[in-house]
């Protein structure tokens, strides 16, 4: 039996899906209304899942105070109320789709020292969700 612990966080942020080297028409064709030149935003909900041994003394895979602090310092402080295209360094090169957001957040959290990061799942809206797992490619 394999055990994992998941914690849910949320932050609102804005983004625009487009490639600077493409024409407006090309961006509109590929990204549709997500290419709107002034951007738009979402309330992102991020589920962080970690695995590891349950500590005998605490009954915990990871102390939530440690996990919350690590997620706050490495993700929430930067992403909360931010423009993903302009304020998050990783998105200077890549389009801030939620697929890429999963990868970027995974990368930022994979050094969590107290348990193994297993999965990042992000709900962009109530209808769309995306997942990135440690067993996938990086």
């Amino acid at each position, binding site marked *: *039996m*394999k*055990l994992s612990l*998941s914690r*849910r966080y949320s932050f609102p942020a804005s983004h625009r899906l487009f490639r600077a080297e493409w024409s407006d028409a090309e961006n509109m064709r590929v990204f549709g209304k997500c290419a709107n030149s002034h951007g738009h935003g979402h309330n992102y909900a991020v589920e962080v899942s970690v695995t590891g041994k*349950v500590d005998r003394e605490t009954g*915990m895979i990871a102390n939530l105070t440690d996990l919350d602090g690590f997620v706050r310092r490495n993700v929430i402080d930067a992403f909360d109320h931010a423009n993903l295209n302009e304020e998050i360094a990783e998105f200077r090169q890549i389009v801030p789709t939620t697929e890429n957001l999963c990868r970027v957040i995974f990368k930022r959290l994979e050094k969590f020292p107290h348990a193994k990061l297993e999965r990042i799942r992000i709900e962009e809206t109530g209808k769309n969700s995306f997942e990135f797992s440690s067993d996938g490619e990086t």
Partner: protein
Amino acid sequence: MLRVTRKLEFAAAHFYHNPNLSAEENRRIFGKCNNPKGHGHNYVLEVTVAGEPDPKTGMILDLNELKAILDREVTARMDHKHLNYDVPELSGKIPTCEEIATVIWNLLEPKIRQGRLEHIRLYESPELFVDCARNGQ
């Protein structure tokens, strides 16, 4: 292979305290969960059973039977109980979501005979949950 998932809720009290640690360490590690007067949650449990539907019934297992197992093994043991005092399977353990889910898995796994227990997810709140999956799944 198909999977069927049934969901249930139970309300229970708990607090976290390890008698082998000092009062100060308990407060540092467990924070407000260390309050000895306890607090509680509405736990939500999702139980997933996998298997092939019986050609006679079209069912992986009889959901009434699954409900009876869940009532007996989980609801009767944990609903409106204090997890530190009322559940012998948790005795000597800190009743974290990890430990409660492990106890529930061990209670249910041998009882489910049609299909097999594949996964459980226990929510302590919408923001915190634990998954138990059969090895290799």
